[in-house]
């Protein structure tokens, strides 16, 4: 058939590492989770956070869609029995665990699987049921199938004991089963017609017993509570609906997810739903209120499961991540009733809140009152501290342990101290107080910073000795640059020799305070030194000063910004006198959050780094302890950073967090010993589909692969085929973002230069750091618009990387052009060498390849959406000295080799007689192999076509380094290895022989790269929706 000679013998390519969407999770014990990774089952220990076992349990072309544990253990020797199913296949897996006594990680002794059985139709759900078998009770497996069918099977033989068909045969997107015995087996099916159907498996008529109507979209997921009383359904309409299973009554419609909802699980007190928006939401079953949001994944959350005792929920993401979230005891929101105080009796809306200490909140309300609330009780009446008509509609507040300040519209500041025993109103400004900040120095000494105008901050000193009166004195006006906007970021050093402020434009200003400040008037001070964009263009939202050990004459300034970064600067005064030059240098930087850093909190005197940061990200306020490995010590859901909030820390380390939720103020008490509240068992790989991969370094049986895709990020992945644990064979080492939108190509040139390209005509250069784990951006972050900015770059091929200073490469564009670029390897500067001025392809150019001939000539091959392949001579361009844009010139050869798009071209070794071999893979499922001879022209010697090389579009092809084998991948999810050979009768006519084949678990594979190490082992990295590495 078409010259394809089958040689499917020997070993097929072996999958050695993989990370694909987690489509199913299940708990074996309170601490052991199993998850699906394609056809592989992984066993995770939640204590050590390690993968303790893994096994391929379904055929390679089947993805696991469900795991269901049998709820009792009959064999008492640590054997857990579960069914694993995907598509139409199911099997029973036995896992034996040894739980070691000495707190070590449990050991998976073995994973054994039974036969893989086939169901008649797609399996949507499975449930273990008790049934009578030869007069004895036995376990059977009930399967809900996609056309409203249920079969109950014997688990060993797969024999069908019962097959029941619902009276309706609608196609189901989702199903759930309930019942411990075959007699009580109830089936719930979520149809494509937006309905949930309930019927009894034992009812011979298959009559629908309940029909739950209300969703506006198809039902993607269903859950039934353990007691069988409640059904939850999730849908395309972005809602979760909760139904009474007996009456069919709709109990709650839960709005909140920002995209489609895929899955749900019902616990005793809450419902957890997972959505396309990447979050899990936790809903109170009684009230229907959303009590928590877990940012699980960069992409969809496909699966969630609760631990047997319902203390943990594991959630699996579309980015391959597996997260662990505590419910119950450690989760604040879920036990809000006991643990948090909801200040619901406030008359009117809350305008501002500050915490005096962990138990007292000062609140300014729209009812013109400044009140003191004792937050440890829910019932106590608030105490009126001041009646201030000015706080109707406007107030700002800040607090430090023992002191709170509320700024008002009339320019006055109400200061509350001594546990609310002292209230003083200070007339500080003539206009409304826009920002206020308080810093404590101990022994009743405080700094108060207030501003009414945008460019000047008033610094006042407040003393409030335990038994004495409250004294206040303005110290100085601190000038900012004109039109700068102070964010409330202020800090003073312990000896008050330094003050630092931050602005909305990211500037850091440091003031050196003279020892002899005048007492009779308030002087105005200018910054001694500034960093204009300490946080880029993001606001510098908080600052703290501490003495640096190393520099006795200087201090260290810690800043947090709305870019999510924490930076440390050293401030050093050169020389001894007052006019000394002040130098600020950045010492460190650290990313704390994907959102905003809003405040720095002094939490622990005894620590080397006594600070924590208050951050806001995805509607959660998190307190993160700052260290080499920042960890969240508290995290609560809240509305937004712009709403009033406050955080206080007690000397014991206990935290109090006050946030606005649903228009009400909630005060959460966080115990001191609370551990980080969530854990990541597997880190997410990529936020979006991967579109390009390139090996950037090979060393010591390890590979570093740069991968990029639709999310604009470029990640470096480390592949360790020899690693024992399945999870550590593939991990993300670093990531960076310089593309605004999708990246389509990544190539390595000159050993250390990486070029990435994609939408918006974007071309970026990177340098591979020593070790290979990081890519350092070259050139200015703000790139000027390059020619071709209106189009997408579809492919990049290196033409010449022999020079150490420059690399020439060609880029193919969606505007039908090809452009040749010269990149400076040290600066990343790009110059356009030449372009295809006539745009001869006349359609989107999809693929490029280069071949260097023995005589030094460099040919470029290009393929387009219409199947045309062209060969260009670029030698002349590369030998040019000056960079003058010119036309690439006419192609040397042009021919239609595919019916539709040429997705990939690659060239193999140059033959001795000056001939070379070109392979191409197309959207038409076809591979072609062409042999060319070159003199002053290009001559096609022979061309072979393999029409049915794949069942679907060929996406990428690559020759191995020795040119003896060709690897192709296609959207049919097959990886095929072809052997390059010659026809028997003609040794110049090259052809391909089918060598090996494997199924890949990576859907929509659009990228492929090969790497051969010094021992001759070749790895193939396939990327698309996930990444898989094969040894071929």
């Amino acid at each position, binding site marked *: 058939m078409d010259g*394809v000679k089958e040689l*499917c013998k020997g070993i097929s390519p072996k999958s050695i590492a993989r990370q694909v969407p987690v*489509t199913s999770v299940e708990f074996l014990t309170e601490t052991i989770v199993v998850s699906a990774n394609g056809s592989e089952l992984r066993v995770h220990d939640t204590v050590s956070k390690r993968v303790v076992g893994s096994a391929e349990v379904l055929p390679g*072309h089947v*993805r696991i869609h469900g795991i269901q544990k049998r709820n009792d253990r009959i064999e008492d020797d640590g054997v857990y029995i579960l069914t694993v199913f995907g*598509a139409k296949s199911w099997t029973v897996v036995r896992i034996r665990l040894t739980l070691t006594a000495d707190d070590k990680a449990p050991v998976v002794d073995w994973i054994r699987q039974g036969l893989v059985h086939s169901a008649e*139709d*797609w399996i949507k759900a499975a449930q273990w049921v008790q049934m009578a078998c030869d007069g004895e009770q036995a376990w059977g497996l009930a399967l809900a199938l*996609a056309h409203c069918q249920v079969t109950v099977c014997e688990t060993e033989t797969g024999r069908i004991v019962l097959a029941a068909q619902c009276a309706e*045969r609608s*196609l189901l997107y989702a199903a759930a089963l309930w019942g411990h015995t075959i007699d009580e087996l109830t089936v719930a099916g979520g149809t494509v*017609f*937006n309905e949930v159907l309930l019927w009894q498996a034992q009812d011979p008529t298959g009559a629908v017993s309940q029909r739950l109507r209300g*969703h*506006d*979209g*198809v039902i*993607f997921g269903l859950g039934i509570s353990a007691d069988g009383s409640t059904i939850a359904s999730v849908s395309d*309409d*972005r*809602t979760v609906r909760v139904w009474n299973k007996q009456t069919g009554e709709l109990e709650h419609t839960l*709005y*909140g997810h920002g995209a489609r909802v895929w899955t749900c699980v019902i616990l005793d007190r809450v419902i957890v739903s997972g959505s396309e928006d990447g979050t899990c939401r936790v809903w109170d079953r009684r009230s229907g209120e959303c009590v*928590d949001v877990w940012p699980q994944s960069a992409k*969809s959350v*496909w699966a969630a499961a609760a631990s047997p005792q319902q203390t943990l929920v594991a959630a699996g993401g*579309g980015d391959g991540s597996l997260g662990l979230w505590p419910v119950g005891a450690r989760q604040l929101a879920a036990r809000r009733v006991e643990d948090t105080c909801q200040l619901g009796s406030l008359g009117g809306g809350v305008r501002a809140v500050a915490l005096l200490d962990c138990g007292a909140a000062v609140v300014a309300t729209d009812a013109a009152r400044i009140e003191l609330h004792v937050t440890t009780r829910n019932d106590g009446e608030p105490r009126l501290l001041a009646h201030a008509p000015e706080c109707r509609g406007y107030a700002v507040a800040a607090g430090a342990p023992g002191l709170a300040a509320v700024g008002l519209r009339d320019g006055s500041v109400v200061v509350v101290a001594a546990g609310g025993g002292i209230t003083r109103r200070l007339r500080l400004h003539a206009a409304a107080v826009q920002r206020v900040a308080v810093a404590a120095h101990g022994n009743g000494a405080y700094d108060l910073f207030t501003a009414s105008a945008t460019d000047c901050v008033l610094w006042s000193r407040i003393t409030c000795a335990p038994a004495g009166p409250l004294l206040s004195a303005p110290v100085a006006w601190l000038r900012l640059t004109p039109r700068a906007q102070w964010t409330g970021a202020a800090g003073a050093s312990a000896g008050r020799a330094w003050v630092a402020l931050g602005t909305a434009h990211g500037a850091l200003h440091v003031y050196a305070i003279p020892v002899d400040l005048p007492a009779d008037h308030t002087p105005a001070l200018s910054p001694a030194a500034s960093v204009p964009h300490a946080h880029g263009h993001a606001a510098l939202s908080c600052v703290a000063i501490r003495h640096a050990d190393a520099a006795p004459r200087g201090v260290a300034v810690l800043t947090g910004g709305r870019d999510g970064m924490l930076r440390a600067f050293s401030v050093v005064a050169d020389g001894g006198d007052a006019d000394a030059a002040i130098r600020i240098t950045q010492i460190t930087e650290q990313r704390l959050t994907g959102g905003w850093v809003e405040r720095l909190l002094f939490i622990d005197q005894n620590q080397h780094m006594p600070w924590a940061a208050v951050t806001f990200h995805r*509607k959660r306020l998190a307190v993160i302890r700052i260290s080499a490995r920042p960890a969240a010590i508290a995290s609560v859901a809240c*509305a*937004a950073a712009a709403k009033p909030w406050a955080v206080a820390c007690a000397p014991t380390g206990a935290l109090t967090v006050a946030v606005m*939720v649903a*228009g009400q103020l909630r005060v959460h008490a966080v115990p001191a010993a609370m551990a980080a509240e969530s854990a990541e068992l597997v880190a997410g790989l990529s936020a979006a589909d991967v579109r390009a991969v390139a090996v950037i370094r090979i060393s010591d049986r390890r590979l570093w692969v740069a991968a990029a895709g639709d999310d604009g990020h470029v990640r470096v992945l480390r592949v360790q085929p020899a690693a024992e644990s399945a999870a550590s064979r593939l991990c993300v080492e670093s990531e960076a973002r310089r593309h605004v939108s999708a990246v389509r190509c990544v190539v390595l040139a000159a050993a250390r230069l990486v070029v990435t390209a994609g939408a918006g005509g974007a071309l970026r250069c990177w340098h591979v750091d020593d070790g290979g784990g990081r890519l350092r951006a070259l050139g200015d972050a703000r790139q000027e618009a390059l020619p071709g900015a209106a*189009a*997408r770059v579809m492919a990049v091929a290196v033409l010449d990387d022999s020079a150490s200073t420059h690399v020439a490469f060609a880029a193919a*564009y969606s*505007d*039908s052009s090809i452009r040749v670029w010269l990149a400076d390897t040290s600066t990343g500067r790009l110059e356009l060498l030449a372009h295809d001025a006539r745009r001869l392809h006349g*359609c*989107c150019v*999809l693929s490029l390849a280069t071949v260097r001939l023995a005589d030094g000539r460099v040919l470029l091959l290009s393929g387009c*959406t219409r*199947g045309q392949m062209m060969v260009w001579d670029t030698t002349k361009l590369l030998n040019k000295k000056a960079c003058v844009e010119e036309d690439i010139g006419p192609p040397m050869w042009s021919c239609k080799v595919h*019916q*539709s798009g040429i*997705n990939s071209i690659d060239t193999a070794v140059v033959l001795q007689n000056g001939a070379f071999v070109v392979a191409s893979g197309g*959207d*038409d499922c*076809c591979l072609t192999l062409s042999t060319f001879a070159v003199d002053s022209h290009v001559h096609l010697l022979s061309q072979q076509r393999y029409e*049915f090389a794949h*069942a*679907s*579009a060929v996406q990428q092809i690559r020759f191995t380094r020795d040119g003896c084998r060709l690897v192709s991948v296609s959207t*049919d*999810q*097959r990886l095929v290895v072809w052997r390059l050979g010659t026809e028997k009768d003609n040794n110049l006519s090259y052809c391909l022989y089918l060598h090996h*084949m494997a*199924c890949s678990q990576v*859907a*929509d594979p659009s990228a492929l790269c090969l790497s051969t190490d010094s021992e001759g082992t070749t790895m193939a990295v396939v990327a698309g*929706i996930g990444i898989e590495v094969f040894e071929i």
Partner: protein
Amino acid sequence: MGKSSKDKRDVYYRLAKEQGWRARSAFKLLQVNEEFNIFQGVTRAVDLCAAPGSWSQVLSKELKKNSPGDPQVVAVDLQAMAPLPGVVQIQGDITKLSTAEQIISHFDGAQADLVVSDGAPDVTGLHDLDEYIQAQLILAALNITTHVLRPGGTFVAKIFRGKDVTLLYAQLKIFFRTVHVAKPRSSRNSSIEAFIVCMDYCPPADYVPNMANPLMDVPYNVSNPVVGSNRVIVPFVACGDLRGFDADMTYSLDTDESEPYHHRDPTQSPINPPYKKALELKRSNYYNNTL
């Protein structure tokens, strides 16, 4: 995104608006016809999963050119669709026998010459699931087609060329003498969609159309293995004029120099998305006060 960026990115989207088609998919059917001449001699055509109606538009316009009589077009969809001249609409479920009977009754008892289906499910992003659901949709369309299509008739449907497309080919080849998979140039290269063009309807001798049982896709087995060249294969044909527009190419907005570009709104805006209520709540700032 600016208003014109989708116009810039997708030339067929722009052309569809300019030429008054309800969706860009109209060009796909036109291009399939260019290659396979499926409209030749057709007087009775059925459009399954018709909404928003661009294929019905094409059928009602093109059939007039090809056949001398008065061609009849029946469009079936679950959703309501804006009326189209010359097209009889049935709002119904394609898995119901009553729908098949309704179609036949509109043809005065005669069977259709051509059945087309451009239906696609709500794509989830899990490719194996999406491909399965799409295959079930096609098999449901095939099932109703076996009730309404005359022997020798043609069936055209959208498919996803994913990992198990072979299973679908195997099933379709049981019912049709020739089966091709067509990729119109107006369908993006990056899209996994293609169109199955099944000609010369010829059901197995013992086949009795039965709406009560859904048609199932056949499993992989010895005669249809997972991999290898022994699997069922279907020829691929790219269709559409090579000189025509390229769906993947970035065009400048002024393709026609005689007429400068101006932005047009879509011919038919989407009706009632499932997330309408959720979106309304978002717009009314409901979420700002909750988690």
